[in-house]
């Protein structure tokens, strides 16, 4: 499934250093000698150290056990995956597999491994390592990654100890074939982007016959000994730094840098300060710090939309708040909120309005298919009145003794969401809708939205909230079954109780008809329906704001695969201009 479409709205601001080069060229010393040819300036040279700054430390350096972004940023440099993706489009590109194929029925994946790839200790990388990775996941008791491999034929049986190997993965020479129990189009990127771990290191912790043995306690989880990536692990000082050295056996060209350092600065303000002083070379920052950092001549600025969005969920299965079941009321709520004002005030313009689920940067996004809801309070009022609501004595709409009033939650400490909550409360008041704003700890909100049952609707009902401001961060594949299929209302992530046949069919097709045009059509229908029905106020997507020291060449960030591995996807190509 080659995806080859640039997201139409990818915004990328690159500050070029052409001016600096010109100045250097004019230096008198250079004039005295014969000037070096232009081309040699752009020839990568080896050496140097990159210090990457982040606000949180990695947790565990093994893709099987990690579930957080910092860990992935580090192990992503150690363990390569079968494929990579184009950072601008999310389209798969070759890596450990030089070629890959998805069978038309979506039930078989084939990877042709690139010959000559070795681990950093010289051991060849083979299909058996792919198998070892899947086995390690299925036998792990602490992993939260099983969903990626569990649909492979025999994976469950292996995990439970009923088989001594995963039947559905066969390796012949350099060809790995993976059979799935059912068609699942996202498998190519889910399995393809998973970091491959070495059999010759982790094999000793596993035993095909004994399902109780697993890699969960392996010491290599915190100190990888070998890798296929551009850097190999050297030292970890918890909550301070992780140091990695160049892998001399790296198979994909480069790396040019000698050393790669992951440095933790937990405070965003001092993280920005460290960028300014040059203590760190690259970091993602918050909107408030952008202006100050742009004044530093030695920093290049990149801003691009991240796949994901912040939204307001309307709980349709909430006892006493049945008005959320009425699509016209939800549409009125869409017209009644000036999302752009929030983008401008909190994100300082570094974001974009969103109208449906698929990220604007995805190959599966089609803006023309979407219904937009411009800010129009008068129209919002008309739409509410058309449904038979009348303003009460306090200006809030009423119908059959029920007030158009509800509580809106978000998690405390998230400034963007708290501002949206505040703006929504004020603006909805102006269209006769009363919002009671509430913030609570992320853990508590997570529990409220994810688990609890509604008092009125009971088992049939959804979750313990009226409305909530939440967010999704999204990956490469447009699959949205878990969030929007009607089967996911009670146990899945469809926490608003949305049910629509067109959407159900579209997200099913998106998982089972793997031809690109089939999926495109399916997600187009899906997004159109969502934008019409407004089960969320889809809110906005925010930009990733990145600064990198200008001395580094070859920096080419983009929205994909997502924040994980983000801008570091090609760090082996980075080099320092002398």
């Amino acid at each position, binding site marked *: 499934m080659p995806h080859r479409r640039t997201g139409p709205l990818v915004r990328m601001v690159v500050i070029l250093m052409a001016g600096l080069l010109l100045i250097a060229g004019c230096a008198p010393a250079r004039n005295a000698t014969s000037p070096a040819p232009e081309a040699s300036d752009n020839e990568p040279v080896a050496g140097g*150290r990159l*210090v990457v700054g982040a606000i*949180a430390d990695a*947790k*565990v350096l093994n893709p099987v*056990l990690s*579930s957080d972004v910092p860990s992935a940023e580090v192990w992503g440099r150690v363990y390569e995956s079968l494929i990579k993706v184009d950072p601008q489009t999310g389209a798969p590109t070759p890596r450990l597999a030089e070629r890959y194929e998805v069978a038309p029925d979506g039930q078989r994946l084939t990877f042709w491994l690139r010959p000559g790839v070795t681990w950093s200790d010289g051991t060849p990388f083979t299909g058996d390592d792919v198998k070892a990775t899947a086995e390690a996941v299925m036998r792990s*008791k*602490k*992993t*939260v*990654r*099983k*969903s*990626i491999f*569990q649909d492979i034929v025999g994976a469950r049986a292996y995990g439970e100890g009923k088989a001594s190997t995963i039947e559905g993965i066969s390796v012949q020479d350099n060809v790995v074939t993976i059979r799935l129990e059912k068609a699942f189009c996202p498998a190519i990127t*889910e399995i393809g982007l998973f970091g491959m771990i070495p059999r010759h290191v982790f094999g000793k912790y596993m035993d095909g016959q004994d399902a109780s043995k697993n890699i*969960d*306690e392996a010491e290599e*989880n*915190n100190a990888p000994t070998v890798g296929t990536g551009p850097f190999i692990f050297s030292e970890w*000082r*918890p*909550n*301070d*730094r992780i*140091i990695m050295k160049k892998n001399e056996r790296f198979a994909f060209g480069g790396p040019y840098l000698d050393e790669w*350092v992951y*440095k*933790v*600065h*937990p*405070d965003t*303000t*001092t993280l920005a*300060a*460290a960028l*300014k*002083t040059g*203590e760190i070379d690259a970091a993602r920052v918050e909107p408030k710090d952008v202006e100050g950092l742009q004044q530093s001549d030695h920093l290049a600025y990149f801003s691009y939309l991240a796949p994901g969005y912040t939204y307001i969920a309307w709980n349709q299965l909430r006892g006493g708040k049945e008005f959320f079941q009425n699509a016209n009321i939800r549409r009125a709520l869409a017209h009644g909120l000036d999302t752009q004002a929030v983008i401008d005030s909190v994100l300082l313009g570094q974001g974009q309005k969103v109208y449906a689920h698929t990220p604007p940067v995805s190959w599966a996004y089609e803006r023309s298919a979407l219904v937009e809801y411009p800010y129009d309070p008068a129209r919002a009022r008309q739409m509410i009145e058309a449904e038979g609501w009348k303003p009460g004595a306090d200006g809030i709409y009423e119908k059959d003794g029920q007030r158009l009033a509800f509580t809106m939650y978000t998690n405390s400490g998230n400034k963007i969401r708290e501002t949206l909550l505040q703006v929504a409360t004020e603006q909805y008041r102006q269209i006769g809708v009363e919002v009671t704003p509430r913030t609570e*700890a*992320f*853990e*508590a909100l*997570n*529990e409220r939205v*994810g688990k609890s049952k509604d008092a009125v609707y009971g088992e049939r009902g959804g979750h313990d909230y009226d409305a909530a401001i939440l967010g*999704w*961060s999204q990956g490469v594949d447009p699959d949205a079954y*878990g969030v929007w299929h009607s089967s996911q209302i009670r*146990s*899945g*992530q469809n926490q608003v109780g949305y049910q629509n046949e067109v959407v159900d069919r579209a997200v099913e097709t998106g998982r089972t008809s793997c031809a690109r045009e089939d999926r495109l059509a399916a997600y187009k229908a899906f997004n159109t329906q969502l934008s019409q029905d407004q089960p969320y106020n889809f809110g906005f997507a925010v930009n990733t704001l990145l600064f990198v020291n200008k001395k580094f060449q070859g920096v080419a960030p983009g929205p994909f695969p997502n924040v994980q591995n983000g801008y570091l996807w090609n760090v082996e190509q980075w080099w320092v201009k002398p």
Partner: protein
Amino acid sequence: MTRFILRRLIQAVLTLFGITILTFTLVRLAPGDPVSLMVAGTAEMTAADLAAVRVAYGVDEPIPQQYLRWLGRMLSGDLGQSLLYKRPVAQMIGATLPNTLQLSGLALLVALLVGVPLGTLAALRRGSVVDQAIRILSVAGHAIPPFWLGLLFVLTFAVQLRFFPVGGMLTIGAHDWDLGDRLAHLVGPVLTLSLAGIANYTRYLRTEVLDVLAQDYVRTARAKGLHARTVALAHVLRNALLPVITALGGILATLVSGSLVVEHVFAWPGMGRLTFEAARAKDYPVIMGVVVLTSALLLLSYLIRDVVYGVVDPRVSRT
């Protein structure tokens, strides 16, 4: 005496149990469990898989059972494994504690070295301009929030003037024993951390010294015609310091528990951040490990204080 120490020891151990039970229960009663926080936002998991992961992390059982299991392991010397970092808690504390000791030890030293003379001076020059100036400093030290002071330090001395690094313990690439580099990294956090201590000790000392100055033996010493400095140092300060040393009783715990705010601002990898992060992630083996360590030290320092009291004043052991 032995009976007294024994009784206090038993009390301390019982208190420690109480603290662990209370902490364990409170941590587990707060909303959200570590596993759901771990999977929040990641791929969909089946209910069965989620339940299996809860079993693997030991968070599926009733809280009393979990506590007993933790207690059994702890008594055999095993603090367990961090849920988040998947490595032994003892190893994590072992790697973090020395960092905190460097910072808090130095900050305490600075606080005492500055606070004690200032407090004494303020008392000796009571009502003078010097006293007023010291009082203003002391009030400011109490009132200024450390995170603000820390940020101010970073923005002024690290970013504008480039005198010191922004944060961390050591320049990347520098040798562990590069003392100049280490000191440059210590200046900001030590000054920020010691300010509150300076303010405290100054006020404390001033009160105590004034108290002692009113004593008869001071008047006698002066009447004997001793030099004012001799009176101040030998008669006044020595006696005024005794209660200060008592007040240091809880210091052992403060020294190891670290300061979240200062560590956060200066990117210092210490116990405060370790504890805070563990609390956020409900990483209860780590929380419990830190709690056991700090409360044991606190109880130990109280015990030592009580024993010393007992030696000095026989009446204490009978109460």
